[in-house]
């Protein structure tokens, strides 16, 4: 009995033989990722409407929406991304997909930055910036068709037009009311 106990550690040899060598010779072999793996995101420029829902929900602020002059810029910095995929979840138009890419190291940080630039629509009344992109307006119209009547006007112009309509309905004559 004592002898059997002495030789028990030798079982390691059979354990090792049974399992074999388990090392995956990455990068010479494919990496061990499953179908659910979350890698970096990819933003579909043809769908993104620049609403900023993703930037709002991103925990580490890897996605940042900023406004500059008459553009809205969505910046994605892979260096801060935690690959949680919340942005893909909350995007109203499904512009963000989570890919399986994780080999993202690069010598320059410029490779880690992606930007999407949107034009800001102009008000059809006064020509000022609306703070929304064309696709955002289309999205609103899609979900609320009557919005088409006023969504291309800035709030001031809307107010003016409403007052004009009201005045005309009451039968008075007006010139364009200056604010």
């Amino acid at each position: 009995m004592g002898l059997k106990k002495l030789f028990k550690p030798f079982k390691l040899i059979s354990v090792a033989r049974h399992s074999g060598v388990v090392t995956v010779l990455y990068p010479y072999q494919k990496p061990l990722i499953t179908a659910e793996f979350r890698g970096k995101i990819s933003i579909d420029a043809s769908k993104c409407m620049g609403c900023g829902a993703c930037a709002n929900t991103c925990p580490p602020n890897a996605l940042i929406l900023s406004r500059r002059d008459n553009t809205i810029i969505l910046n994605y910095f892979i260096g801060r991304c935690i690959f949680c995929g919340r942005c893909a979840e909350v995007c109203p138009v499904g512009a963000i997909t989570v890919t399986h890419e994780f080999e993202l190291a690069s010598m320059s940080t410029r490779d880690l930055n992606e930007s999407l630039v949107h034009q800001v629509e102009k008000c059809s009344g006064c020509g000022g910036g609306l703070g929304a992109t064309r696709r955002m307006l289309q999205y609103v119209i899609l979900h609320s068709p009557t919005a088409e009547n006023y969504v291309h006007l800035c709030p001031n112009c809307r107010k003016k037009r409403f007052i004009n309509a009201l005045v005309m309905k009451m039968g008075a004559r007006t010139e364009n009311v200056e604010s």
Partner: protein
Amino acid sequence: MWLVISLYIVFLLVFLLIPPLYDGVERKIRAKLHSRVGPPTVLQTWYDILKLFKKELVVTDTGLLSILLGGLLLVTVIITALTMPLGFNTPITSSTASLVLFTVLLIGCQLLWVSLSLTPGNPYATVGVFREAVLGMINEFFLVLGLVALMFYIGSPSFATLSSTRLSITYALIFLLLAVSAYIGSGRIPYDIAEAEPELASGILIEFSGPLLGITLYSHFLKRAILYGILADMIVLPLARAIGVVGAAILYPVILLVIWVIFAVISVLLGRTRVDIAPKSMLKIYIPLSIAILIAWIAGV
């Protein structure tokens, strides 16, 4: 005569190149037992040592002493290798008291190793040396005892008589005693507590870097080869008459590899012991073995 000398020079060079190579083989085997790939080639240990020579040397304020002792250790270990037969006897190893000379040089190597570890004055290294000394005192004693027993058995203090010795149970028991003391003396698990950095405070090599560390590591491997070389000699030398000098010279590194691999596999299967448990467990093996040798020798088997 000239055959022996030229054979000797060739196989001495082989012997000096072998230790890191066999360590590479050991690392691959250990990796296989761990279910992993290990180093890319068996030459990895050589690459590591050569890489160290390219690195910068960073020493403590007692650095000069470390460098001198390191060089001295390397030279002494190489000289010890010269006094040992490599499967066949040479004029040096056939001299009258060659075994005694070899034993004394071996102890000298061990003392130099301990002194080298004491030079940096680092508290970790000092704790490591303390542990090494505790182990060493017991192990060296029985190593010397084994070699002395061998001398008594073959009847003379020279390697030359080892070729003509007869094999018996006493011989096998002496071989076993020397095998155990060679295993422990070469710093193998479970008794590698001197240089064990997962233990919070040991690491006799902790302050060495660059070429100094390269030299120290090489000396460590060469000493290991010498210790196992005695065992290989005990097997090959008695056969030398039957297979001839050239055959013995070629068989010797092979037997050395077999011994090395067996010891490597045993060390993978066990865990590390503790410095206060170690002496007791060592004595539990040595004392019965020594008594058995005595009995067998008296009984004439």
